[in-house]
Every structure is written in C-alpha cells, then in structure tokens.
C-alpha cells in the first residue's frame, strides 16, 4: 500500500477536476466576467491537477517514468496547493498566477527527483505560494 488515505486523496483530486469542468462550462455560458472569482480559481486548480499530475510527456526521459514514491510526493504537493485559498483582483491575474505555478511544477516534472534543479523549482513554487495563498 502507498499510504493511509491514498484512495481518499485520489477521490479528492477527482472531485476537484469534476468541479473544475462544471465551472468551465459556466464560464463558457456566462463569460469570464459573469462568474464569481471562485469559479476561475476552482477551474485553474483542476487545470493544475491536469497539467502537473495527470499529464506525462512520453518523449521526456524523466517525465515518462514516475515511480510510486514520486507520484505520492507530487499528488501531495498538488493537493496542498489546492487546499489554499487565493485572492485575485481579476481573472486575468488568476490565470497568469496559476500558469506560473503550472510551469514551475512542469519544470519539476522534467527534473530528476530531489535534484538541485528540482529543489530550486520547488523553492520558487513555495515563494509564489506564500505571495498569495492562505
């Protein structure tokens, strides 16, 4: 077994993705300005899970193979971000913020586990999180 609560974590991630899709549909119907900021936040959290955990690049030698320990580490990392709540002035800032986070985690995915590059990106990610997240 991976750990206690692994299945619950998966369920939590799935639910975020589900809610993100529902909110995306609402944004498509009502427009970016027609929904509360929380909708954008939920949508981008689901994008985070999609881009950083669910997607893997088969053509990258490191990303293509993710051992179970790394999977657990990354899922915990991503869910931890999703547990934070954020404040944004407008939806464009929300999008740019999450894109920066997604990019940092993708760079982590391309780096050897717990290598220097990996840890540097992780630190940058934590700094970004501290700027806004609670």
């Amino acid at each position, binding site marked *: 077994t991976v750990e206690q609560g692994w299945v619950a974590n998966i369920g939590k991630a799935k639910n975020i993705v589900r809610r993100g899709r529902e909110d995306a549909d609402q944004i498509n119907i009502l427009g*970016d300005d027609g929904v509360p900021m929380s909708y954008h936040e939920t949508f981008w959290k689901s994008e985070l899970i999609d881009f950083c955990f669910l997607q893997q690049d088969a053509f*990258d030698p490191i990303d293509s193979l993710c051992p179970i320990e790394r999977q657990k580490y990354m899922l915990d990392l991503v869910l931890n971000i999703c547990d934070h709540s954020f404040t944004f002035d407008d939806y*464009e800032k929300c999008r740019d913020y999450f894109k920066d986070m997604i990019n940092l985690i993708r760079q982590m995915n*391309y780096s050897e586990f717990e290598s220097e590059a990996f840890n540097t990106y992780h630190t940058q990610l934590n700094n970004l999180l501290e700027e806004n997240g609670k």
Partner: protein
Amino acid sequence: MANKAYQRIYTQLEAITKATVSLKAKGVSNDELAIVHGRLAQVVRTKGDMITLQVFSGTEGIPTNAEITFLGAPPTLHVSDQLSGRFFDAYGNPIDGGPRVEGEERQIGGPSVNPYKRRQPSQLIPTGIAGIDLNNTLVSGQKIPFFADPDQPYNQVMADVALRADVDKIILGGMGLSNDDYLFFRHSFEAAGALDKIICFINTTENPPVERLLVPDMALTAAEYFAVDKNEKVLVLLTDMTLYADALSIVSNRMDQIPSKDSMPGSLYSDLAKIYEKAVQLPTGGSITIIAVTTLNDGDITHAIPDNTGYITEGQLFLRADSDSGKVIIDPFRSLSRLKQLVQGKQTREDHSQVMNAGVRLYADAQNAKTKLENGFDLSDYDHRCLAYAKEYATRLLSIDVNIRIEEMLDTAWELFGKYFSKAETGIKQALTDKYWKE
C-alpha cells in the same frame, strides 16, 4: 488469351446478376481468372460445384448459354526492371503504347511479409509539409492514409510528398481516377524528371469499377519485387481507397452476402488489412511505404471505410480547408502518425517533441478563444494573442503549400512562441527554452 488444347468450355450459367455470374464447374480454384463471353472474370466464391465469378466489365448482354473458360490461375504480373517508367491498366496491360513487360510471372495478392522478418521502421521520410513533418512525422515502412473530403487537393499533396521523398520507386495505384487526375500525376512526374522511378496501374472513371479490385494487389506485387528482390525503397500511393471499398460492396451485395455497416461487406476490415499490411521495413534495407487516400463523406470518419482503415493504418493525415487562415491544412487535432516517436528527437533536433506538443496545445487554446468569440464574449489579452498565433501557425506551418526543412519548422515555431507568449505560458522544458527561445 487463346484457348489451350483440350480446354473445357462451359456453356450454361445458373445465375446472372449485375456484376456476377454463377455456374456449375469442377476443379476450379478461388481467385482463378476466367473468360465469360469474351470478358475477363474472376472466381469469388466456390460452394461445392457452384462457382460464382465477378465479371470485371459488368454482365450486360451476357446470355445464359455464354461460353466460359477457366484460365487455370489467379491474376499475375510479370515483374522485372522493365516495369520502371511504365503505365498499365488494372490487368497489367500497357496503356502507354509500349511493349508488354517480360519477366518472372508472379501471382498477385499473396500473403504479406513474415512478421519475424520485419524490422521496426526507423527512417524518417521528410515531406517539407510541417503539418506532417512537425506534428505527424512519417517513417519508411509506414502505412498511413489521407482523410479528406472529395473537394480537397489530396492528389496534389500526395504527388508533392511522393516527389520530395527519397525513394527508389514510386508506384501509383489509381482507382476511379478522373482523366484530369491521371494526367495531373503523369505531368507532375514528367516535370520532376522522375518518370523512370514511376510505375502506374490506372483504373479511371471510364473503366469498369469492379476492375479496381485488382489495382492495389498489382501495385503491391510490383512493390514487393523491388523491395524484396532489389532492396529498394518503394513508396506506394493508392488513390482512392473509398472507391475500392465501393467496388467490394458492389460485388458482395450482388453475391447476396448480408451487408454489414454502411452496406459494406462484413469482410471489409480483412480486405483492407490484406492490402495495408504489405507495408514493411525489411532487414536488408528495402521497404514498402503505403500512403493512401480515403475520401470522406462530409468529414464523417465514423463511416465504415475510414473507421476500419483507421484501425489498420498507423495513423491518418486529415486534410481540411481552414476558414480562419484560408489555407488547406493538415488538421493537428484529427491527424496522427503512430510512429513519429521513433524519429522525433532521434533523427531530428532534440526539441522536436516539445515544440510539436506546445505548438498544438496553444493552437487548441486558440480554438477555445474562437468559441468565446462566437458566443459573443469579450476576449482576454491571452485569447487575442492565441488567435493571432493560430493564424500565423496555420499559415506558416500547418498549410500544405509550405515546403521547408524540419529545422526551419522548429525555428519558426520558436519564433511564434517568442512573439506571442511568455516562456511560462508555453510550459516547455527550461533546458530547451534556454537554448532555443527567440525574443
């Protein structure tokens, strides 16, 4: 085809349909050729003594006491170097005014290459078209069709691909070609000075449709001769496989076989696979690459013909007219080369896969932006940049009229990324953005 001495002549037909005749005969083999009332025909079913023949030019005017003689063998092709630069009909008869080809007589339509003798494809086939080379790279030994509506310039794209490929022989199998198309191919090959590389088996719209059924087997028998016996790299072009399948269904329906989906014979998958599986990379260096055309009805890929084809082939190249850029493009969302990973980054530059991936993903974001626009919403700054990027991406990379080397395709993509997006927005591995990013 004179009758041999002591040849048995049958003179009573049991049944005549629009494409087939039936009679009782003994000692007849499946696929065997015969002459029915002076017309060439082929055995398509034997049930005890009851033989059913497909008459290639149709059965109009055949009486019930027609004379039938069996020729004792399935269709054959004489293979030798004399095939080069020649044009034939579906039976292998010359249509270019030249002499008959002399050489070893081989039965067409035999089994495909022993799987144990095959090598995994590994040689890149550059086409100059980014929609192919960048996003759906082709390798020799691959089998892949163009999917397109009938009004798209698929023959033109195929001719371009064939002439740019570094191959020893190009074998064209035309099924239901219009005279214009036939002349187009002939002139293109002549103009490129490539006539000695070409062998054509042509069935035009003026020829009977059932004849088409011989064309792929003829083309592939010739291909196998050059690939196996001579270790040559052979490119086989088959256009249009939809018309081939239509001919299959004509015969099958006339034989009262119960039709399957879309009135196609239930054996459609096997019939198509028998042809496509001849694509091969041989250990001795020879290869057969098959590029076919399957025309669609209003873009419907769920129709039995493209559906079955897609299961057999190693991907597909979807041609469509893109209204935003005004160009005919290889649609990145509906095209795929299942062998591209064998050469991307290995025989091409290290950044190929990442650039391909990012380019298409950003193009997808542009489609989302387009939907927002159509729904009447205000577009964000990112949306505007995506739309501008998509137009340039389609014009400079996806369009079929672009002819550049792969390295230039990659540099063009980097230029577009730098022009419209930040590094974080592309999400590309930093080691590559450090090296290739253009401000």
